[in-house]
């Protein structure tokens, strides 16, 4: 009983830290977008797009082929991509779960939808039926998840013959943070992004994000990972409903390519030491 309460107390502090990280990420990206409303973008490190690590992937092939980056991107994209790859080499998709502002926006929108539909009464670790967000049927879920890998492949191929980054006109990060909603397409992207995020938690991350697809492989090779203590796990299933990526049977899939290392499973677990973070 004592170890249970100690574990839950620690959980609360970890949850708060993650929320703080996500708020800082959102505010920081909003400020970058706001700063780029001013004239003379080149004096501030380039266009808004040059502050995106995905831009590094989008402009990599053209840079290797011609020595020139795509328009609106520059070498700063590579520096940020190196930062994200560094995190991923150590801790898998921790960037997705802790730092990505698009993921943070989705989590807050899903939280808002849940509150608006009475979800604030949901008990942690319980499979209470919520109106919003809903879960996609297991029949379609695996197929939809593979879409993001297809999008990544298309983006990389398309980057060799485009002038601008291929995803630029339908990028939810631009729609959310750049304050440049001049094109109707980008406004549509913003509306769709908000609706899908409220209807299904982390919809973009699970099904469409090419950055997540690129980082998925690191979950299999990163030395810092979640591990299960088979002896103490009671297979109670409390962690399953809390997984924001809707991974089924979480204890058996701690190294899933879909895991964003958010530590929700560890935080929900009431048996101290059943799920741990291990290095090496």
């Amino acid at each position, binding site marked *: 009983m004592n170890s249970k309460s100690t574990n839950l107390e620690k959980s609360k502090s*970890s949850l708060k*830290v993650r929320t703080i*990280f996500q708020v800082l990420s959102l505010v920081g990206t909003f400020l970058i977008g706001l700063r780029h409303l001013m004239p003379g973008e080149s004096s501030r490190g380039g266009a808004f797009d040059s502050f995106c690590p995905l831009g590094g992937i989008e402009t990599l092939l053209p840079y290797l082929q011609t020595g020139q980056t795509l328009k*609106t991107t520059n070498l*700063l994209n590579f520096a940020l991509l*190196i*930062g994200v790859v560094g*995190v991923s080499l150590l801790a898998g998709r921790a960037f997705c779960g802790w*730092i990505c502002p698009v993921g943070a926006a989705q989590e807050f929108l899903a939280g808002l939808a849940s509150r608006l539909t009475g979800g604030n009464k949901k008990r942690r670790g319980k499979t209470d039926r919520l109106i919003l967000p809903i879960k996609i049927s297991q029949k379609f879920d695996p197929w939809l998840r593979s879409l993001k890998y297809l999008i990544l492949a298309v983006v990389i191929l398309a980057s060799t013959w485009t002038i601008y980054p291929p995803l630029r006109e339908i990028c939810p990060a631009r729609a959310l943070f750049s304050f440049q909603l001049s094109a109707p397409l980008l406004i549509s992207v913003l509306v769709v992004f908000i609706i899908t995020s409220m209807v299904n938690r982390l919809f973009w991350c699970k099904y469409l994000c090419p950055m997540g697809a690129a980082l998925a492989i690191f979950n299999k090779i990163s030395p810092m990972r979640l591990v299960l203590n088979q002896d103490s796990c009671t297979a109670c299933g409390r962690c399953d409903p809390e997984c924001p990526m809707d991974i089924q049977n979480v204890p058996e899939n701690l190294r899933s390519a879909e895991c964003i290392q958010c530590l929700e499973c560890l935080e929900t677990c009431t048996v101290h030491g059943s799920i741990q973070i*291990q290095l090496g």
Partner: protein
Amino acid sequence: MKIKPDQYPLIVIATLVIFTVLGLALGFVPSRGGSEEHGLTPTQVEVASVYLNNI
């Protein structure tokens, strides 16, 4: 080696900073503009200027 959940976010953010700085040190800094026309009206620029001056 076990990592405490409290230490996890610090390790993640420190790694991100270290590798990003490494990327910058390797020379991946904006060498050419990569800029574009912002396409905003003078009023929008004025509103943004007032906001940025007040924060």
